[in-house]
């Protein structure tokens, strides 16, 4: 039975502005299905974003939405979650927004383990501003600022998140929308900071410069370069060269930030009462 996406969309703003074949729509759909499965009321969900193609998402969604400055979505979301811990805060970011300009906020949100779900749509490039190389542009692949191929090794957002202390880290692709939905659902269920990286296509800015000018070619490229985590464990490192590992990469339990903060307030209030009483 068809899923009722209209319930969650601002239909007067549709069709959306993303290019033909852009994978962001697939990620947004997976996110909406996961939210529906959680059974949350639209008034209890807040979607926060920064700047970029992906960050246009909240404009089309009928939740509490916040469109903030470039890279600072996590900083705004942290404030929102601390002020209203009862709300479910979801941040949707692009690779440039989360890993480059907001890299510092990303590290510290992971470290704090605040109960926010971060969805990073990684399309390997800065799409909106003209196809500049981003921290995730694979080595040797072309971008408008790397016409002879990127010389910087690509950043692995999931490994950075694990190292920084995120407690749920998963990677899906837009070629497997149902799996992506499952990872987002598990991320929403998880108490603590969850990072879901969605490998996405950008046929216009990235594919066009790398001999994959159609969305279909790029989606097939993504499908062929993803290695499931169970299989990756058996493969020698040289076979994983240039590929990315998909699946649930890290699940851990750690004290959650808003709860720890509440405890700290109670402790301070008790100490103050003791001093004055």
């Amino acid at each position, binding site marked *: *039975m*068809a*899923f009722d*996406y209209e319930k969650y*969309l601002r239909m007067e703003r*549709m*069709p*959306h502005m*993303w*290019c*033909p*074949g*852009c*994978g*962001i*729509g*697939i990620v947004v*759909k*997976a996110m909406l299905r996961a939210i529906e499965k959680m059974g949350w009321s639209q008034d209890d969900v807040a979607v926060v974003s920064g700047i970029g193609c992906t960050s246009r998402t909240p404009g089309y969604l009928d939740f509490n939405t916040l469109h903030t400055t470039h890279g600072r979505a996590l900083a705004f979301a942290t404030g929102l979650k601390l002020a209203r811990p009862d709300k479910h805060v979801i941040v949707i970011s692009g690779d440039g927004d989360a890993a480059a300009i907001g890299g510092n906020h990303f590290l510290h949100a992971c470290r704090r383990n605040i109960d926010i779900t971060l969805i990073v749509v990684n399309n390997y490039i800065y799409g909106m501003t003209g196809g500049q190389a981003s921290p995730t542009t694979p080595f040797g692949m072309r971008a408008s600022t790397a016409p002879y191929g990127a010389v910087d090794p690509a950043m692995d957002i999931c490994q950075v998140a694990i190292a920084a202390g995120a407690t749920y880290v998963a990677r899906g692709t*837009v*070629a497997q*929308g*149902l799996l992506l*939905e499952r990872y987002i659902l598990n991320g929403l269920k998880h108490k603590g900071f969850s990072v879901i990286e969605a490998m996405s296509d950008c046929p216009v800015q990235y594919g066009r410069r790398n001999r994959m000018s*159609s*969305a*279909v070619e790029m*989606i*097939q490229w993504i499908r062929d370069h993803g290695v499931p985590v169970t299989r990756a464990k058996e493969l020698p490192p040289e076979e994983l060269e240039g590929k990315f590992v998909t699946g649930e990469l890290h699940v851990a339990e750690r004290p959650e930030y808003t709860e720890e903060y509440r405890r700290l307030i109670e402790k301070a209030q008790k100490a103050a009462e003791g001093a004055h009483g």
Partner: protein
Amino acid sequence: MAETRVQEGKAAGAVEQPSPGKSLPRIEVIADFCKGCEICVVMCPRNVLEMRADPSRWVGSVVAVVRPEACTRCMLCEVHCPDFAIKVF
């Protein structure tokens, strides 16, 4: 933009007769939302969908349901349509 819904599932002539008691899936295409990226056509394991040239549209083509009787309601086209343009009932 006026929203026009094209019910292609019933319009396209059914070649194979479905077994009695089994309802034919209804595939709804919101033509105004389709940007002609072809992802649904590739995702469909049963070749139910096809691109059809449409010079009146800026993208030049629109998805059409050509073999609704082969559809198994796997929903892969709906799940992977980035433009919210396909619905399978």
